[in-house]
């Protein structure tokens, strides 16, 4: 097996060596796309504490907030790298990825995904097309120095969307040496993935710079099936590969900074480009045959495919004067997404003359100002103002969301009071105003009405809406001996998105007629979280239960009716109650051997509306992990771990979902760090689904068309730091 992957790496390497990326012969690829600047990103390693739930700094970290927070450092990410950042972070209890293919996925926190959680980079909200269930995250995971995941309502700091929580990525660590750098080479057997990431950085007196580049290229991924059975239709697969799921990704970033005694500022420019194919035999939920010879090559990207470019410019500055810290963040983001497919006529739509089915061009401007004042030894007051302007333009022959622009303004105040060293309380309040303008949209083709007439049907009205929201949160932290207790209560919200307010037409991606509702209210959520944590030299235990109530959850309700030949779904609001917990226990059997156990459970139910009694879409099933971890030596230079991942049945579904049977898979990981002179090298090995089991993931996009999850996957990465 190891030989296979080494061979893959070697073959791909020689392939890369022989020809420049752009010139490789790719049979069905007609277009070349914007070449990403070869300047950019990456920091040099600043090794943090291990993510293990022990250690003093972890206790200090936990006492900083009554929210449920998890930190994942670079080392831990490296040991767990998968095809995408969201999948990599599935190691954190409560975090799941909704995946499409092997390298595109978006995260969910406690079952809340899409626009119900926020992803932020250095405190700035990442702005892509979060609403789409087949869209990825468009962030380069190799750029990330540290991830902080907040589980639970985080509207106070992040405004709209942070209902389920926040995934806060830190990419701004300053280099420590005059000159430093690193390389990371990754290979994966299942989709014959090869990735290379390189970064350099340096510091001279008060100035520093960082730059990095990453490339990745992967083939169609393998599943544990010779054919896919969907609506009694048989799709035969060649070599068990999911046709046309190959892809590639290029990333680049550059950062310049100044670190003074009282003033710190940095600016970072990054670009992420990816192109990946959609499974060729189905477009959305529609089975489709094509004349394209998909089986000619497993590495080519044919129609249908998606390509996205995300450009980001972030500026971050901090000024410290006496007991006051002033912070300013300014950012510009451009997310350009295109989805191409073979033009075909459907219903009254004639055959389009090009392949551009959809295009979204989103520009986001953000400016945040924050202030922290250390009023007394026991009291810190924070306040801030957030502003964001978004404009999303559309193009292409397939309509799914209208053009929109949204202006949001928010202001908050937050106070933290230390009653005793081991007892801290906090509370905050925030007000948000948002104004959204949805542009009208009419079909580009005519639809017959009555006997002898036809019209360009209007698919979205011109709508202007304003939203106000008052949110708050309060909580406490209490520490006694080995125990930490936390309680946090928070209200959060999100403003309805353009699709929810303005859609009135066929969603060709999933083949249904979606009707928006221009009178929807801002969605609100109340959540009560608790955290109980115990740590001694042998045992670490953590339990995080929560209850969550939505008075007006926005839900896309399937009906019995048809409009223009497709089932009608409409947006409505319903009361929803959810509860769940995460539990982790680790036990040090000997100083080298540790047993680990973690489990998570989540239940949701609609309490009112047309689907009263039903759950919510993409409900995360119960799961459990049991593992053993053996550390090689006292210096923690290496480890080997084995883990059983067990997932329960998911029978709580809503139309058009299917129930998903539970499964278990066996995984293993190992890594070892070697010193080479002053530098070090790290080799990490991961095997997922060792027994090559066939199973379905309830939250995978391809689940709806009965595609099983990837077969055995061996990943090897070699990193070198200098």
């Amino acid at each position: 097996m190891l030989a296979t992957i080494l061979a893959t790496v070697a073959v791909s390497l020689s392939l890369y060596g022989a020809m420049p990326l752009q010139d490789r012969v790719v049979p069905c690829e007609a277009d070349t796309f914007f070449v990403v600047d070869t300047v950019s990103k990456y920091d040099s390693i600043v090794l943090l504490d291990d993510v293990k739930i022990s250690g003093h700094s972890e206790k200090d970290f936990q006492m900083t907030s009554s929210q449920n927070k998890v930190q994942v450092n670079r080392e831990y990410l490296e040991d767990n790298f998968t095809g995408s950042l969201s999948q990599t972070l599935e190691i954190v209890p409560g975090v799941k990825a909704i995946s499409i293919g092997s390298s595109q996925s978006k995260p969910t926190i406690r079952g809340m995904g899409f626009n119900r959680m926020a992803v932020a980079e250095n405190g700035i909200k990442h702005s892509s097309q979060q609403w789409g269930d087949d869209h990825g995250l468009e962030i380069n995971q190799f750029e990330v120095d540290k991830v902080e995941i907040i589980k639970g309502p985080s509207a106070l700091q992040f405004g709209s969307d942070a209902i389920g929580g926040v995934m806060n990525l830190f990419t701004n660590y300053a280099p420590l040496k005059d000159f430093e750098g690193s390389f990371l080479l990754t290979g994966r057997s299942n989709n014959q993935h090869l990735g290379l990431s390189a970064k350099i950085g340096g510091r001279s007196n008060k100035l520093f710079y960082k730059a990095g580049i990453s490339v990745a290229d992967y083939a169609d991924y393998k599943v544990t099936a010779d054919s896919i059975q969907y609506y009694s239709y048989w799709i035969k697969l060649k070599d068990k590969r999911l046709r046309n799921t190959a892809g590639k990704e290029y990333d680049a970033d550059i950062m310049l900074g100044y670190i003074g005694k009282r003033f710190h500022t940095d600016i970072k420019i990054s670009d992420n480009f990816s192109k990946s194919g959609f499974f060729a035999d189905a477009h959305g939920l529609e089975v489709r045959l094509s004349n394209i010879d998909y089986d000619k090559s497993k590495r080519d990207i044919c129609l249908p495919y998606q390509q996205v470019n995300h450009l980001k410019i972030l500026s971050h500055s901090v000024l410290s004067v006496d007991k006051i810290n002033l912070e300013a963040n300014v950012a510009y983001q451009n997310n350009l997404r295109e989805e191409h497919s073979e033009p075909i006529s459907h219903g009254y739509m004639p055959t389009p003359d090009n392949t551009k089915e959809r295009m979204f061009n989103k520009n986001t401007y953000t400016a945040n100002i924050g202030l922290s004042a250390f009023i007394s030894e026991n009291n810190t007051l924070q306040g801030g103002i957030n502003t964001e302007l978004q404009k999303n333009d559309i193009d292409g022959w397939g309509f799914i969301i209208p053009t929109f622009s949204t202006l949001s303004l928010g202001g908050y105040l937050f106070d933290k009071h230390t009653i005793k060293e081991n007892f801290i309380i906090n509370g905050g309040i925030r007000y948000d105003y948002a104004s959204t303008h949805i542009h009208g949209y009419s079909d580009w083709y005519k639809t017959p009405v009555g006997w002898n007439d036809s019209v360009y049907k209007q698919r979205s009205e011109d709508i202007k809406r304003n939203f106000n929201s008052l949110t708050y949160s309060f909580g406490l932290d209490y520490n006694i001996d080995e125990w930490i207790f936390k309680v946090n209560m928070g209200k959060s919200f999100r403003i309805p998105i353009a699709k929810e307010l303005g859609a009135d037409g066929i969603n060709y991606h999933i083949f249904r007629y979606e009707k928006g509702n221009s009178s929807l209210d801002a969605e609100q959520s109340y959540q009560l979280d608790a955290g109980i944590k115990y740590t001694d030299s042998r045992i670490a235990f953590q339990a995080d239960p929560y209850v969550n109530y939505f008075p007006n959850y926005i839900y896309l309700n399937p009906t019995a009716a048809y409009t223009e030949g497709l089932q009608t779904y409409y947006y409505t609001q319903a009361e929803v109650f959810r509860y769940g917990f995460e539990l982790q226990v680790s036990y040090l059997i000997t100083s080298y051997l540790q047993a680990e156990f973690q489990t998570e459970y989540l239940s949701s139910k609609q309490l009112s509306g047309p689907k009263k009694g039903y759950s919510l879409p993409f409900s995360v099933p119960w799961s459990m992990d049991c593992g053993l971890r053996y550390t090689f030596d006292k210096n923690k230079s290496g480890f080997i771990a084995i883990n059983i991942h067990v997932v329960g049945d998911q029978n709580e579904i809503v139309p058009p979902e299917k129930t998903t049977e539970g499964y278990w898979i066996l995984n293993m990981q190992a890594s070892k760090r070697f010193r080479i002179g002053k530098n070090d090298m790290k080799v990490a090995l991961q095997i997922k689904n060792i027994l090559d089991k066939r199973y379905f993931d309830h939250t995978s996009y391809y689940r709806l068309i009965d595609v099983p999850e990837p077969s055995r996957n061996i990943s090897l990465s070699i990193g070198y730091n200098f």
Partner: protein
Amino acid sequence: MKKLLYLSTAISLIFMACGDKDDEKRDMQRPSITDKGIEVSPSNCQSFKRGDSIPFRYVFTDNEELGAYNIEIHNNFTHHTHSTAKEDCDLDTEKHPVNPWVYNHDFAIPQNSTEYTADFNIPVPKDKDVGDYHFMIRLTDKAGWQEIKSVEIKITE
């Protein structure tokens, strides 16, 4: 250690206590498009002449209450396919549509039906392109579950 055991027991008990009681009755079953007691029409790979009609005969069933159905006919001249049948029909050579037949109608099913037999004729226009077509049947139940059946047909001179 003992404290820990008590605590975890307490937590598990709390969660078991508030586990789902399933008090509401929810429909979790899809409706069916069947051939119960009849010979269905159209069936896969059948041919129909322009100017004639396609007899539509299918039986719809549901465990609770049927919703509505839709019939959509569109060309398959370029061979995209949605057939739900295992056999492949003989397709004509690929061609570009000039004046293809588009048929798309929604039909109601009487309320409170758990079984319904659809039986009527769809006239085939005289002036539309001959060739391979998809005959799609979509059926919902009251709860919003949907079943789809696709039949490949041919329209001839």
